[in-house]
């Protein structure tokens, strides 16, 4: 929105926005997404899987549980891939349909929507809220405000608790809250996220999108003239103006010189970011479609065709394209590239996860003693290298492992025959590798440690080097 304060101030306090309640297709869709995302967010920490939380990022024990998966910090690449998949999906959705993420599923929108619902219940719709804020402080105003902030705080605290519930088992958290035993970092992060929710959804709202969100700023890189945006059909709507309800559309222009826009300002009143969509696409627009919903209602009341404000592409509005042409424009290079990237990454990650071993092996050479010349029992000289290796069991039952090695002639190893590792635990074991002296050329030789899991017969081969000194 154009700031029209005739002043030379470089900072001004942002005007408070009182969005009007809106009903319609997009509002319903948004509430659907609010329900879906929050069902997942609030519900997931409570789901159990094999006697543990189904999703738990246990930072202290450095284990990440995702349904059947037990991930080690070494598996972080999978979580990174998940993030990259999310980012690519955002790219794809943005290229196709603009800021639909912002308008329908972003936590900022979702929590603002929930908080505004509470606000509406207690303080009423837009006019009542404006009146309440302008009225003098009295008992009614006070009680309404107190009531609103109390409910907001409860929602915020529950949100904070749920968020921390992804890192600490939530039943323990709730028990600690009930017994007033929640202390330390858990308490800090619960309060921190509660405060962030309360502040962002209750007060900052559109300011977050306008000034804080980095994603909102680089989305324009994914936009083109075929991307869906909320657009006002200027040719049909202008010139705007008030008119009698009884003039039919056929004679409207000839008799009054007016377009279809009746200049009721409802599209401005419903906008959560306080812009006027009729001025064209603006950076503040989060693509929520509230203005389209409310305008369609007005058009129906006026018996005009709907979709004066609609989700459409710049090209479609400019050239009056039909749906078929718009759908064909979906298959453009940008969209195809994003889709191809997204699909191939999804398949790659799925393949990797499906073929992931049930354990990992990490091998570390001793650093002080590179190689050792030792007299064996039968007076033969042998060369020894010492290693430690870690087996990381990512199954949720005790497993048994057997170790062998290959890569050099007459190579012998000394290490426990059978290594037992408890569920989701890791263990360091010492390994001594020996070869007869003066049989192998000096230098470093590749050898492999083959660890076999006896319970599922998988083998992981980890490469290391055997150092032969020049004697």
């Amino acid at each position, binding site marked *: 929105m154009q700031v029209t304060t005739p002043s*030379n101030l*470089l900072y*001004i306090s942002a005007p408070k926005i009182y969005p009007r309640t809106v009903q319609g297709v997009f509002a319903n869709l948004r509430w659907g997404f609010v329900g879906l995302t929050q069902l997942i967010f609030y519900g997931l920490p409570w789901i159990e899987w094999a006697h543990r939380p189904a999703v738990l990022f246990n930072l202290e024990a450095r284990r990440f549980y995702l349904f059947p998966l037990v991930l080690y910090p070494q598996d972080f690449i999978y979580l990174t891939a998940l993030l990259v998949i999310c980012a690519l999906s955002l790219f794809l959705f943005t290229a196709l349909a603009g800021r639909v993420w912002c308008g329908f599923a972003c936590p900022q929108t979702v929590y603002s929507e929930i908080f505004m619902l509470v606000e509406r219940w207690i303080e009423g719709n837009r006019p009542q809220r404006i009146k309440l804020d302008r009225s003098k402080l009295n008992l009614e105003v006070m009680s309404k405000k107190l009531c609103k902030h109390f409910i907001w705080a409860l929602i915020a605290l529950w949100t904070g608790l749920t968020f921390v519930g992804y890192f600490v088992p939530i039943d323990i958290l709730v028990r600690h809250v009930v017994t007033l035993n929640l202390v330390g970092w858990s308490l800090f992060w619960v309060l921190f996220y509660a405060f962030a929710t309360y502040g962002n959804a209750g007060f900052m709202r559109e300011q977050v999108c306008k*000034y804080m969100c980095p994603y909102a700023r680089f989305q324009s890189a994914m936009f083109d003239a075929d991307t869906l945006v909320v657009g006002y059909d200027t040719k049909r709507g202008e010139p705007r103006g008030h008119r009698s309800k009884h003039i039919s559309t056929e004679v409207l222009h000839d008799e009054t010189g007016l377009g279809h826009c009746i200049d009721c300002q409802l599209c401005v009143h419903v906008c959560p970011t306080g812009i006027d969509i009729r001025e064209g696409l603006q950076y503040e627009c989060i693509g929520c479609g509230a203005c389209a919903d409310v305008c369609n209602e007005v058009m129906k009341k006026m018996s005009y065709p709907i979709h004066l404000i609609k989700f459409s592409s710049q090209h479609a509005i400019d050239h009056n394209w039909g749906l078929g042409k718009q759908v064909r424009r979906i298959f453009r290079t940008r969209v195809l590239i994003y889709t191809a990237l997204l699909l191939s990454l999804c398949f790659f990650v799925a393949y990797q996860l499906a073929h992931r071993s049930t354990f990992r092996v990490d091998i570390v050479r001793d650093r002080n003693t590179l190689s050792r010349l030792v007299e064996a029992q039968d007076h033969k000289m042998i060369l020894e290298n*010492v290693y430690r290796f870690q087996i990381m069991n990512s199954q949720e039952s005790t497993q048994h492992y057997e170790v062998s090695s290959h890569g050099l002639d007459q190579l012998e190893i000394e290490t426990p025959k059978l290594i037992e590792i408890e569920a989701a635990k890791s263990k360091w074991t010492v390994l001594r590798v020996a070869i007869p002296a003066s049989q192998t050329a000096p230098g470093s030789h590749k050898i492999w440690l083959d660890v076999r899991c006896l319970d599922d017969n998988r083998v992981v081969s980890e490469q290391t080097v055997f150092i032969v000194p020049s004697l």
Partner: protein
Amino acid sequence: MSDFNSPYWSYYIGAVVVLGLFACMFLLWKMSKSNGQPIDPGENGHVWDEDLREQNNPLPLWWVGLFVITTVFSAIYLLLYPGLGSFKGTLNWSSSQEHAQDMQANLDSIAPLYAKFDALSIQDMAKDPQAISIGSNLFLNNCAQCHASDGKGSKGFPNLTDSDWLHGGSPDKIQETITLGRVGLMPPMAQAVGTASDIDNLANYVLSLSSSPHDAAKAKKGQEKFAVCAACHGARGQGIQAIGSANLSDQIWLHGAGQVAIENMIMNGKVNQMPAQKGRLSDSQIRVLSAYIWRLSNKAPS
């Protein structure tokens, strides 16, 4: 601020910090308005490339509030914590103090685990799988850097898995060695022994003690020179554990086998040190570690 002799730099840095904070606030206040020229609503009067106009989109006030908050935060921080020159802050916080506290907290947290080991003798602990598992971790983290992960050491670093002990291999002696450390000293003996050929003869005699390949004639000549060695290594070169002298009659050569290595040792001597672990590890940890190390040479690793 022990790097500086005069307090000048402390005051200088403190002044720069305080002035910097005030300068930030002054800048914020000064820049809250543009420079007073009359401008169009919403535009600041700058026009480029004929019609490209720069708009004035004022920052929201809360953003300015963030600047103020960070400055106030800095001021409070500088009052509480060290940062203003050599001023230590009213909380008297220091990183070494925090480290010491964290170490103590860690020791307190593991104390219950070690309490049951304190009741066991070192020999009994060596039979306790949990103690051995903890001992193994302690060994890998604190000892393996020199003695190798398998405890067999290497040149200069004793093998802990055999029956040869410079200072004694009883559980108590092992605990003493870990706690207080050891210094092994072999003085340079070239002058006391004599000429190069004397040293050659002596080295051959030392080799003969362990029945290693040697020149018998030279060894016979070197025998009388061994008197100066016998003071520490004993009459037959078997070593004396009370003073940590090496046993020369076995096949274990910590600093290298063969005539050259022995001659070098006679001529140049050697100081070898096992650092004391007291202060790094708690007494309970050292006991568990002793059990693990004692077990290395008293029971074949399974």
